């Protein structure tokens, strides 16, 4: 542990000089490594650098994917901030806005069609009531309801 004898400054300086001489020898010897080893080290380096490229590339691709998932408003907001890839971000905004617009148009059309059909149904009922022999006021009469019930049961007996 740290309880080892602490060397004097002179001894420490001498030790440091010795260490530096030793490592200088090591460095000069290491510079003359055999050709096959330096080549393999170079190949390893190249491989590592190639891996780095691959590691960076998916990160760039992932960003637009997130924008698509986030929807049109996120993409449009990003278009304004990102000055570097303005063309790309506008294109992304446009592309991600298309499904949103289609959805909106679909919802509006469904709403119009449903309104129309419900109005149509009500109109049909009204027309049937008005053109019937029975006056509409008869439906408010409690006696008429009783009559309908008894007349509906009578034929089944």
């Amino acid at each position, binding site marked *: *542990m*740290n309880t*080892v004898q602490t*060397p004097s400054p002179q001894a420490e300086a001498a*030790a*440091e000089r*010795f*260490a*530096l*001489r*030793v*490592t*200088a*020898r*090591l*460095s*000069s*010897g*290491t*510079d003359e*490594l055999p050709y096959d*080893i*330096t080549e*393999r*080290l170079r190949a*390893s*380096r190249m*491989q*590592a*650098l190639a*891996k*780095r*490229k691959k*590691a*960076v590339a998916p990160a760039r691709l992932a960003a637009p994917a997130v924008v698509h998932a986030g929807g049109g408003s996120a993409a449009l907001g990003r278009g304004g901030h990102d000055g570097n890839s303005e063309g790309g971000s506008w294109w992304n905004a446009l592309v991600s806005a298309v499904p949103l617009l289609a959805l909106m148009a679909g919802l509006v059309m469904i709403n119009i069609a449903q309104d129309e059909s419900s109005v149509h149904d009500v109109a049909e009922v009204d027309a049937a009531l008005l053109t019937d022999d029975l006056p509409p006021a008869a439906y408010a009469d409690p006696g008429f309801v009783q009559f309908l019930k008894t007349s509906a049961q009578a034929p089944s007996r």
Partner: protein
Amino acid sequence: MATEQELSDFLKSVEKRAFKRSVYHVRNEEAALDIVQDSMLKLAEHYGDKPAAELPMLYQRILSNCTLDWFRRQKTRNALFSSMSDFEGPGEDGMDFDLLEAYSGPEDGERAESAEDLTRRAQIFRSIEAEIAELPPRQREAFLMRYWEEMDVAETAAAMGCSEGSVKTHCFRAIHTLSKALKAKGIEP
């Protein structure tokens, strides 16, 4: 964020020393090349986007971890494929037993005497290498990081995951052992 050129330059500056350090550690050139390759890949894959100033520290840490991983794999492999040798006798004394045995040691005087200086220099280099390889792993790691990689005490401590006091102690002991061993061989670095 480090550019590709910065990362490339950094790896180029560090690869030879990393290889040598791994060789001293695992005593096998093929394994050392694999370790360096693994560590470079990990650095580029996971930390390729870090600032260039952070790369040396990160790389030292990754290299140490890759070396440890190699030892762990060796241990598992030895346990799986050479368990029969356990019955042969009390020869098991730690995970680097085989590695120590496999190391052939310095090959003094093997080169032709093309130039006296060159041979002398090569011999000194080999002797130093051999002595460094003989150092205990933590001392060697501290010594090489501190003086060869030129990291300061705090950086070395952070990379080794120990206190600054421990780094100083490891370095001091390593220097002491080296100077004694080299003096015994009559070598003045």
